[in-house]
């Protein structure tokens, strides 16, 4: 099995009468987009573009999706939400690179998350470098929050597929052939990935083929299935430590393993795991995941997490379970070292497997400048001040700034 990514670079964006993609310019019809997003749970939606370099901020950021399609009507993309829930991950997938569909606004349990399009926080978030089509919304008066959440998720995925459809006939800027991991052992070390998903109930859940992954056991997934949107995020906690749909579609560890496959390693596979809330389930999932990796012939596993303190327990248990089976484990950890960097870095440390990569200090303070405009809400909820003002925040509130999937270059070092 192999997936071909047809990459179209989006260089300019705008709103217009028709949705088109021509010479790198993506124009979106507000009417068409609002039609796609229409749902009984939503009284209305507003659409705006924000581009890199603008004096602008998005607050209350929920999910972000990269526009992709496999054909007219989506061609099976986002299975379980847009396409039918059938295995994907092969054939061709069109990608609108450099743009994201972003939902922003209040949902219960969602923690205040921000993206700056300029200033020091812009470089810390993947959305600081993309043209973002921001969807703001007003819930219908009688709609439950559950239904509002579901409407936003389905609507933004449909819209992402629809935008990419405008590029179906365009000549791609790049073509990437992505073979699936091979089960055959050659003379290179077999390195795979374990991706923990924070599946802890309503507004803190992750979906596989349209269904909650919360009560599942670990499973092997073809990396191409991530590309085609089989994993969709509905997890709105821990802004800097979350893995929105956009990041699953562009999984940095998977991309790096693909890049080096056949050179200094062989990509052994991807195992996804839930992060349950209780200890017994964490232990079961961790031991089970290690067995799946052993069965797939992993020599080493790169383990990633989602969320804060308790997610460290899933990491530690899994890394030690791998070590017990003789599989080398490397954990990607965000540190919680306090504002001055002197606190204990991680909440639960592995005992046997001690290889860790730091994605930065959660508590490190950032000074953000005032901006001309803000979308997602009038107020920055964490500080109860207008969203456009200058303020100081911990890195923890910047969307994907400490990306557990390894997107960023931020790290922490003893000094």
């Amino acid at each position: 099995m192999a997936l071909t990514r047809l990459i179209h670079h989006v260089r300019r964006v705008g709103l217009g009468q028709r949705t088109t993609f021509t010479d790198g310019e993506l124009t979106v019809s507000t009417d068409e987009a609002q039609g796609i997003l229409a749902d009984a749970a939503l009284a209305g939606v507003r659409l705006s573009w924000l581009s890199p370099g603008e004096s602008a901020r998005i607050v209350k950021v929920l999910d972000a999706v990269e526009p992709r399609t496999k054909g007219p009507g989506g061609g099976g993309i986002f299975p379980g939400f847009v396409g039918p829930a059938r295995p994907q991950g092969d054939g061709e997938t069109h990608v609108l690179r450099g743009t994201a569909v972003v939902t922003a606004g209040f949902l219960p349990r969602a923690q205040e998350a921000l993206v700056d399009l300029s200033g020091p926080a812009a470089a810390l978030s993947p959305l600081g470098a993309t043209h973002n089509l921001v969807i703001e919304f007003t819930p219908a008066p009688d709609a439950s929050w559950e239904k509002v959440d579901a409407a936003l998720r389905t609507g933004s995925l449909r819209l992402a597929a629809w935008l990419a459809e405008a590029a179906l006939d365009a000549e791609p800027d790049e073509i990437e052939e992505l073979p699936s991991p091979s089960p055959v052992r050659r003379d290179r070390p077999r390195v795979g990935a374990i991706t923990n998903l924070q599946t802890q109930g309503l507004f803190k859940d992750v979906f596989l083929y349209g269904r909650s992954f919360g009560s599942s056991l670990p499973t092997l997934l073809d990396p191409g299935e991530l590309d085609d949107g089989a994993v969709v995020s509905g997890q709105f906690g821990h802004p800097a430590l979350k893995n929105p749909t956009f990041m699953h579609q562009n999984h940095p560890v998977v991309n790096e393993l693909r890049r080096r496959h056949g050179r200094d390693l062989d990509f052994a596979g991807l195992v996804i795991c839930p992060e349950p809330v209780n200890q017994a389930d964490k232990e079961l999932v961790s031991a089970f995941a290690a067995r799946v990796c052993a069965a797939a012939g992993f020599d080493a596993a790169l383990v990633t997490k989602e969320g804060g303190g308790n997610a460290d327990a899933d990491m530690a248990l899994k890394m030690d379970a791998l070590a017990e089976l003789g599989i080398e484990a490397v954990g990607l950890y965000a540190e919680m070292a306090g504002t001055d960097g002197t606190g204990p870095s991680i909440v639960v440390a592995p005992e046997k497997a001690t290889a860790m990569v730091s994605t930065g200090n959660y508590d490190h303070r950032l000074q953000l400048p005032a901006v001309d405009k803000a979308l997602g809400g009038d107020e920055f909820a964490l500080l109860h001040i207008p969203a456009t003002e200058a303020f100081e925040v911990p890195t923890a509130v910047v969307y994907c700034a400490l990306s557990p999937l390894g997107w960023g270059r931020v790290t922490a070092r003893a000094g």
Partner: protein
Amino acid sequence: MANIVHYINQFFAGVGGEDSAGAGPTLVAGPVGPGRRLAELLAPEHQIVATVWCGDDIASGVVPAIIDLIRSVDTDGGVDLVAAGPAFTSGRYGLACARVAAAAHDAGLRAVASMHEDNPGLDEAGTTPVVASGEVARRMAPSLDRLANAIGLLLRDEPLTAADGRIGKLARLTVMADATAAERAVDLALVRLGGDHTATEIPLPRFDQVTPAAPVEDLRTAMVALVTEGGLVPDENPGSLESARATRWLRYPIAEIDGLQAGEWRSIHGGFSTAYANEDPHRILPLDVGRQLVAEGAFGSLFGEYFVTTGNGTSVANARRFGIEWAADLRHSGARAAILTAT
């Protein structure tokens, strides 16, 4: 010639042991006790101009007074450096050394403390330099050699590194790496598979292994204290105890009361539903059972106050400090045992 003030405890000052652990800070001219050997090691470049000593039970709580004494030292050119210890594995002494060094550092003086890596006071030094001592006072000579070497390096403004015996916190500084975390993780996996079994970007945190105290010989004559991390406070929370990430602890008198009435006491703990605790505050602080056991003669008496903090997202450094302070306070007050209720 640089001027050094040396901080030690009452024991090493030759004043006394536990009987003198409540003695207040005292300034003495020149070196005292281990300071004499330290002064020999530092001569002729540097001299110990004064020694400040204080009783272990109170020292960590009177650090500002200790700093004032250090600053009052009358010397040509002022004080250049404060050295504290060696404190070995003594918790109260280590805590005092760490805090005195950190406070001197904050006051703009060079400072260094000496203690064993397992000393629970170590974290309190923050990023102020600490060098390793031996585990016990029998290792005084090599510990002083290392401390003298560290003092020399600091006074020459040279870096003090792990090779010189530096221990404790080095701040984790936020920087931009050359490669993404994903790229570095793959590199690290290959390095590990290549046979390097220690490579990592994050050193493992050190968690304490606490050795339990010896059993109390006779509880029937012992004073027993009640202490809790359950956030139980008088209903109005007069001391404004934090519901999470506590930075301090509080004490409230219970000598005059036999029980804790619902509505008069409240748990402000942010980490669990407090409904059941507030319905009957004894579920957090078992004063009722404590009084009963005293009446039955099982306990000699109950300590007249209880200590409380909130154990919810509390930093390890703060929690460790609370423990040292509670132990010192209770020991000083004559309590022989404490019941710590946790939530």
